[in-house]
């Protein structure tokens, strides 16, 4: 039987635990699975509690490191190796940074990757996944080792009890996983203060600006290519950087 691990991440879900529950529920349906979480003790207790509700074993990696996607992927890849897991599910809906960890874990375990999976089932040793891809849903078969990012909701939960310290979760240190905290520290994120909600139109517009739909260029506004050739020659003769305000393409830069 394929060993399965579920990566629940390094911090508790942002908004709701139903997506975490959804990932655990899918894993439990696929077979013997182990839930893996890393981070602070209170989060590990919550992860252990939710895993126990679905009858899953749990592995916790206590650490106060704050890592980027590749740092956490190293932790999960090491845990997967220790568990002998060849299929890794990732709860990628609970926190925004999680989706990138799917690819990173796949890279470190030399597995196939598939993100944005909205339904997953096993049949005759093959995983059948439905994947959201823009305006379509793709039907995909997964053979062999894979890291799969799931966005599958469990039942709605308004309130859940504060988890007690868990004895069911097996705790392993970074060292026991073959990882060096000092080396992992190279993937550390600098501490950030969480921003309060933006409360003016200008500030909200700033936040939304990176979501404005990209429009195809208007052909009529494009310059004639032939007329531009001397500019290229002039640029190529310059060495090193030039002021951004005079750089090619700088015109119209609203950030300046």
């Amino acid at each position: 039987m394929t060993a399965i691990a579920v990566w629940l991440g390094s911090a508790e879900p942002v908004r709701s635990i139903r997506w975490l529950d959804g990932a655990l529920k899918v894993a439990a349906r696929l077979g013997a699975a182990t839930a893996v979480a890393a981070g602070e003790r209170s989060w590990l207790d919550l992860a252990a509690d939710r895993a126990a509700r679905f009858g899953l074993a749990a592995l916790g990696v206590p650490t106060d490191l704050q890592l980027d996607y590749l740092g956490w992927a190293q932790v999960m890849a090491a845990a997967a190796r220790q568990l002998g897991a060849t299929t890794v599910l990732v709860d990628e809906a609970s926190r925004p940074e999680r989706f990138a960890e799917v690819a990173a874990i796949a890279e470190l375990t030399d597995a196939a990757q598939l993100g944005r999976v909205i339904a997953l089932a096993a049949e005759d040793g093959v995983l059948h996944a439905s994947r959201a891809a823009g305006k379509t849903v793709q039907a995909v078969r997964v053979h062999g080792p894979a890291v799969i990012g799931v966005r599958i909701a469990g039942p709605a939960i308004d309130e859940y009890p504060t988890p007690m310290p868990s004895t069911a979760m097996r705790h392993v240190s970074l060292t026991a996983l073959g990882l060096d905290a000092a080396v992992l520290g190279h993937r550390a994120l600098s501490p950030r203060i969480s921003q309060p909600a933006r409360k003016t139109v200008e500030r909200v517009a700033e936040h939304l600006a990176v979501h404005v739909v990209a429009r195809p260029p208007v052909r009529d506004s494009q310059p004639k290519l032939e007329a531009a050739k001397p500019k290229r020659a002039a640029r190529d003769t310059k060495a090193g950087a030039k002021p951004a305000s005079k750089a090619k393409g700088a015109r119209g830069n609203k950030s300046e």
Partner: protein
Amino acid sequence: MAAVLVHIDLDGERPHPSSLQALAAGRAVASSWGATLYAAMIAHAPAQASSTWPAGRATPRMPGSAKTIEAIRIALVRGGADKIVVALTDVPVAPLWSALGAAWQGVLDHLRPRLVLFGADAPAACELGPRTGARIGARLFTRARPASAGPSELELRDRDGAYVRMTDGGAAVVMIGAAPRIDVGSDDDIDVMVLELPGGADARIELMGSAPADPAHAAATLIALGDDAAADPEIVRAAGQLAQVIGAHVVTGAQVARGAPLTPELCIAVGAPAIDLAGTTSVVKIGGTGGRGVDGALSGPIAAQLGELAHALEGR
């Protein structure tokens, strides 16, 4: 000279607008940093047909009609590329790492870029971006844009304030969400490099087919109207105007079940819509107060706030 590499996705027979936006950001940054800007796309060339094509530098030849190829080339030239790279693969192009990974790896090996850009909304970005970052050990920025880092330097700044600058050590992979409109006076005789990269697909992922998705569940950006807001024609009109600007899908209680779990990247919640958003969603509330996990909140007249937002974003 450092290389800035931009992945170009195709939207039918043209470069995807989001990829062109990334190219514009790349142009601005490459000029500021004194780097060479490469635009790289992956094209399907059946093995039999491509076997006669020379590897390495060669006359630009790609599958498709001559008119299509020329249109793509001109779009990239006008987009500001210094050089164009076409990676030919014998695998049909699909926005999956399993299909594109081998060819893309060939491009990375060839150029060894310091900065790799993707259009944040380009089809393959979510599959290729993080895997590229992991492969080259890069920092990853998921929705950034160029911003001034002083009188003579641009940086790429992510939503959370993290940034990439010329003086940074190490590589970075950046998904571009916005870029200045560029006025490129580029020339037409730029280099086109064709790389023939056999390597095949990752057989572990088998794409069986695809079907249209329910827009409410598939849209990357949603404007969700509460029941009261949905009953007000002025608010509905203003929401539609904003939706056009940001490419959002508008949902009401009549279209999704009460408490439906949704995972858009961004949701503008107008009034009090009865939906259940994932933690991955950035939430902006209109006609409501902020709170934990809310990135923006505007109180006051809803229709007016929506209109002002649309107006503020239209020119970007």
